[in-house]
């Protein structure tokens, strides 16, 4: 056999062998079900925000969140990250009224999250207890989830975060996307989110948090009692943050 024949035969043999050997790797999916049982079963976390109790000029929830979760603040509206943020709204049609009111905006932890639908590495996903969480070890920073979120609730870390107020919780390096995670690390320890605690400690108590699956919980009662509505639930995202007084 001549050189060309030899090369062709060896090449095919090698290609076939490497294909066969790599078959197990190629056909196995990333092992997502490492642990069958989970502590999160049965819970469906939700929040009710009572805007009638939200005070003008108060920033307790935003400050507590920023401090507890090491959320980046650069004093620049282009790159500041907000897990919970305030806005003041006024009726467009003046004949309806002039009353301005404060609203709080945050990740709505939708039951149909478009962000989780579009994440190419499943770094953003909905946990069993309904919280939409970002796995920052996996996020590649493509920002597609930010495009997909119709509430503009997701933020990218454009710049290194110079502050680290809470050393017991990690901060995020630049290059990944984040949003409110209902302080999942506190929930897993049986505590409540930082914003809820802060709002209560200043005496406003506008943030009510709890398990929507528990029919006796306050949050469940308020959410389903007909008092509360969600932001643009016509989008079909099924948000789990309800508003009273919107």
């Amino acid at each position: 056999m001549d050189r060309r024949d030899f090369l062709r035969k060896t090449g095919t043999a090698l290609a076939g062998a490497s294909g066969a050997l790599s078959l197990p790797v190629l056909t196995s999916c990333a092992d997502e079900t490492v642990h069958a049982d989970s502590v999160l079963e049965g819970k469906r976390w939700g929040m009710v925000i009572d805007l009638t109790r939200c005070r003008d000029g108060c920033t307790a929830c935003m400050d507590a969140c920023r401090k507890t979760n090491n959320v980046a603040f650069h004093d620049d509206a282009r790159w500041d990250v907000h897990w919970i943020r305030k806005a003041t709204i006024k009726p467009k049609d003046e004949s309806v009224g002039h009353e301005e009111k404060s609203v709080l905006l945050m990740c709505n932890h939708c039951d149909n999250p478009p962000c989780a639908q579009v994440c190419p590495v499943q770094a953003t996903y909905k946990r069993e207890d309904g919280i939409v969480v970002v796995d920052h070890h996996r996020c590649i920073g493509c920002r597609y989830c930010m495009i997909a979120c119709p509430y503009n609730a997701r933020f990218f870390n454009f710049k290194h975060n110079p502050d680290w107020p809470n050393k017991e919780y990690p901060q995020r390096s630049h290059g990944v996307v984040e949003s409110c995670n209902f302080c999942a690390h506190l929930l897993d320890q049986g505590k409540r989110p930082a914003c809820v605690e802060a709002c209560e400690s200043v005496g406003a108590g506008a943030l009510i948090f709890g398990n929507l699956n528990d029919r006796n919980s306050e949050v469940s009662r308020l959410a389903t009692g007909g008092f509360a509505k969600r932001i643009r639930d016509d989008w079909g995202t099924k948000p789990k943050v309800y508003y009273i007084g919107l």
Partner: protein
Amino acid sequence: MAMDVQFSKIEGRSFPYYLTVAVLASFVLAGFVATLIMHEHGLYLSGMTNRVPWGLQISMAIFYIGLSAGSLVVSGLYGVFGKMEYKPFARIAAYLAMLFLIAGLLSIFTDQGRIDRVFTKPFTYANATSMFSINPALYSGHIMICVLYLWALFKEKGTLTKITSLVVVLWAIGTHTGTGAIFAFVPRELYNSSLLPPSFVAAALSSGAALMILVIVSLSRATGRHLDNELVIWLGRRLLSIFLLVTLYVLLIENAHRVYVAAEHEAGMFFLFGGTHSFFFWVGLITVGCVIPAVLLFIKRTGTSLRWTVFASILVVVGVLFERYLIVIPGLIHPPELFPGWEIVDAVFLEGVASYTVSYLEILQTLGVLGFIGFAFVVGLKVMPLAPNEARALPAA
């Protein structure tokens, strides 16, 4: 009558050739350095913000993907429809399509926040519902089919050429629909539209065909190899003009629908009349990009002139570049209507209409990718027999 088309490498020893290669290589280096800087320090060095998280790189990425469609259509004229007079261009068309797809992937890769993770995680943790998982699979498959197609063309394997040519054209439609779906399947007011994928395909075909015209003509002028004008004029008058009409049609329906239906009216009006992007739309895309070239190509005097065809092609490429920008940016700068009937008067975040200004590092990144395409193409012409010795139109029967 059998056409015996000869292909040969270009000599590539002249000073202008070496200068071109050197300039393109320096562009690639500049782009590489710019990407490295942004990867190290953070994307705040770009013009993107938390309201406009996608900018120039993504717009250019979809522009490149679109350009690959048209060149494949030209090579498909020979492979699928058997038009022998277009055989001379089949190889450069297939090669260029492959380069544009690689450039699209490169543009997206260099835009990621964590480029170090993007080489493994999208493969091990792919998400079947995400367009950003589906599309790179489509692009990679497309590249592999282009390689196979190119190989079949080099080896003059008739049946394989026909099969791969058909597969690549169909796959291209899938790729471009998928690219349009990245935006269309997302619940943002100016993105969410079933007409966006077809509009993307139509604009892709227009820009690709126009670019092929420009490449064919410049190649023939630069290498001194013969080119029959009728071939280019046919591409312009019978192919590009039709693509332009389809593009205009889909754009018209899309915008008319938005403005008509009450729910999307405000967003539609913002897009058409609400900012600088509207100027880009009416002047850049509609007038310069579609209407003027279509008119030039349909009128007999200009449509049968090579010069005017080339001019019209340049206008189309520029117009579609504006169109890609218009797909990405206006949807992001327009705020979502969170509280219908209410307006936001004060906030800690940029809740209203945002803005986006390109930064010089992003421009360097774009130059880098363009340089890569140019470099690979120009060096490819020297290393492989891609360019036809001559391109003659078939004599009348």
